[in-house]
């Protein structure tokens, strides 16, 4: 046994002196080390991504639900006037004291003595001041509601909403929390009546800016962002593709085109805020376009997106095998025919992917929009791209500066909406690439 081992060892020593020393062990060690670094880097990246997503989602998912209270509202003629009056004079109806309708309804529901000032104030603090528009919309759309009593789901105030979502520490002394013991008792009563519920918060998607969290939404921001994306798509795609085709397929290769190439690459690296300053100077101060408008935002983002699209398009054009061009040219096709009938269709998936990635970048861009005044309080939907609007990331920025708890959850909620749009765009890019690449 010992003998065999010895011979074996000897034999190995013998043969290894014959073999070249190429450091096999070292090579494997280096390979293992490199693999370990790689795995470590990936784990680190994924961990941070998870932390990010978890922190956003855990804070933000509650924003998609909004507490509402079901209150029997009497649309009394005393406050609103008769339907005849209303038909004659709309202003009276517009200016009527709707919050009082809500307050009266609630104290009746809770059986509070209307003379008890403290109790009435406490109860009133449970419903949102946004009821003004909510109730007005009901009456304005149907005048026959006047004089009737209807069960209406009213937005709860953000204090009630936050309290129910567990965002306040209710164990601290009463004077150190935004919701009083009396109010907590009313909430319990309402819950017992089944008059309180957390419903899906459509308002988050449809409302505009508001100083009250419960009636604030990203509706205007989504419209503003959509306008800007359309403008970027309509301008940057054709301009970028035309520039790329010219540079790649037609322009002579000389110093001048080299210089242009270098500049385009540099342009892609210019900080976005610089584009904002450019937009302010050129589009607003010089061309006199309105501030805060989606048109200006779109133009600025177009400038920012152009280099991305040009670089992606040129790469896609270069990836088309030259033999395809020879085939077409050899048949007597002109350069233009060759490009548009053969090269461009093959480059399309690459161009589309680059465009969508450029658009996604533009969608998330904030800094240049702050400079051109899109950081405005806009409550009404913009009718045209010339009207004041905000953008999704700017809305997030503005909400992040608000102190109220209810705005914090909305900040995270809006981030989730933005991330959702970005994920959707990237999925579209992947889908298009898969779809078109099959034709190769």
């Amino acid at each position, binding site marked *: 046994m010992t003998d065999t081992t010895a011979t074996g060892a000897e034999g190995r020593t013998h043969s290894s002196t014959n073999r070249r020393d190429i450091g096999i062990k070292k090579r494997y060690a280096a390979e293992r080390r490199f693999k370990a670094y790689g795995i470590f880097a990936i784990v680190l990246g994924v961990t941070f991504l998870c932390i990010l997503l978890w922190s956003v989602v855990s804070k933000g998912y509650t924003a998609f639900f909004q507490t509402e209270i079901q209150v029997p509202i009497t649309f009394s003629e005393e406050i609103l006037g008769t339907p005849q009056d209303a038909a004659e004079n709309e202003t009276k109806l517009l200016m009527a004291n709707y919050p009082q309708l809500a307050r009266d309804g609630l104290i009746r529901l809770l059986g509070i003595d209307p003379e008890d000032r403290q109790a009435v104030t406490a109860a009133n603090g449970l419903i949102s001041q946004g009821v003004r528009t909510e109730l007005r919309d009901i009456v304005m759309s149907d005048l026959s509601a006047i004089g009737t009593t209807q069960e209406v789901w009213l937005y709860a105030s953000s204090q009630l909403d936050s309290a129910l979502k567990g965002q306040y520490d209710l164990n601290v002394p009463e004077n150190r929390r935004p919701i009083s013991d009396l109010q907590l008792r009313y909430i319990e009563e309402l819950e017992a009546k089944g008059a309180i519920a957390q419903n899906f918060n459509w308002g988050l998607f449809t409302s505009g800016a508001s100083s009250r969290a419960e009636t604030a939404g990203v509706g205007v921001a989504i419209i503003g962002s959509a306008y800007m994306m359309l403008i970027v798509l309509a301008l940057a795609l054709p301009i970028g593709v035309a520039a790329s085709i010219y540079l790649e397929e037609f322009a002579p290769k000389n110093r001048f085109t080299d210089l242009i190439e270098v500049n385009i690459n540099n342009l892609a690296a210019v900080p976005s805020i610089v584009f904002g300053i450019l937009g302010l100077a050129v589009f607003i101060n010089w061309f006199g376009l309105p501030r805060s408008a989606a048109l200006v935002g779109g133009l600025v983002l177009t400038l920012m997106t152009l280099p991305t699209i040009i670089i992606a398009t040129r790469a896609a054009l270069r990836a088309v095998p030259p033999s395809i061009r020879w085939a077409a*040219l*050899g048949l007597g096709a002109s350069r233009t025919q060759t490009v548009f009938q*053969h090269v461009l269709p093959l480059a399309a998936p690459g161009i589309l992917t680059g465009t969508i990635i450029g658009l996604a970048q533009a969608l998330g861009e904030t800094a240049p929009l702050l400079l051109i005044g899109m950081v405005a309080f806009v409550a009404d939907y913009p009718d045209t791209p010339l009207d004041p609007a905000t953008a999704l990331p700017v809305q997030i920025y503005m909400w992040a500066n608000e102190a109220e708890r209810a705005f914090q959850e909305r900040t995270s909620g809006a981030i989730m909406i933005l991330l959702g749009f970005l994920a959707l765009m990237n999925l579209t890019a992947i889908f298009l690439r898969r779809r078109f690449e099959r034709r190769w």
Partner: protein
Amino acid sequence: MMENIQATLNERASVTPNRTIKMKTEKVTVHYGQKQALNGIDLEVYERQVTALIGPSGCGKSTYLRCLNRMNDTIDAAKVAGTILLDGENIYDPDLDVVELRARVGMVFQKPNPFPKSIWENVAYGPKIHGLAKTKDELEEIVHTSLKKAGLYNEVKDRLDEPGTGLSGGQQQRLCIARAIAVSPEVILMDEPCSALDPIATATVEELIDELKQNYTIVIVTHSMQQAARVSQQTAMFHLGDLAEVGDTEMMFSNPSDKRTQDYIMGRFG
């Protein structure tokens, strides 16, 4: 090697020399930037004959071929000088548009390069851009006859709407020949058309070339001397940008006068 080629030549019935000049180049030089690739080539290409261009790689065969249909125009660095005549007419004559020239002088490339489109569209593209067919029926007629002439029709007649890139290498190359034929060229240039094909596909394409010479003038670049011997009537030997020797294929292989040709045929370089 020599015996092999000799055998091929003897097998073949001797060709009656047809001496109509189809294309002619005089003192053609080509520069790529500073580098000279062709040093004054004088060569005549005869109608309805196959002219083979042979020589070691890098000697300028492809460059010369590209002169004949002005494909060198598409290479930025390339500068062509000298006279190139097609039926006695200068191909750089402003009266002869390059589009028309390329319709009359078609090209088949080294690597089969069908468009990533259907077989039908591959063949129909040329006639379409040159307006050769007025009706759909005429176009269909052209596509079918072109595929027949390229000996591909029977293999693909049931799947004309399938992608041309799905065919085998040899079929793809015949599709490219059909595509070139579809615009009714007078001359077909072929740059090592069989170098990417297996021996059986090569044999098929060689037979096809032999048939095509009834109707077309063919200039073929090849790195295989057997192939030159098998398909061509005239052979031109290029060497480092010079035309070393040109003559009847039979003569060239049995009795080369140039030392470089002898060496090349003997396989001493290349």
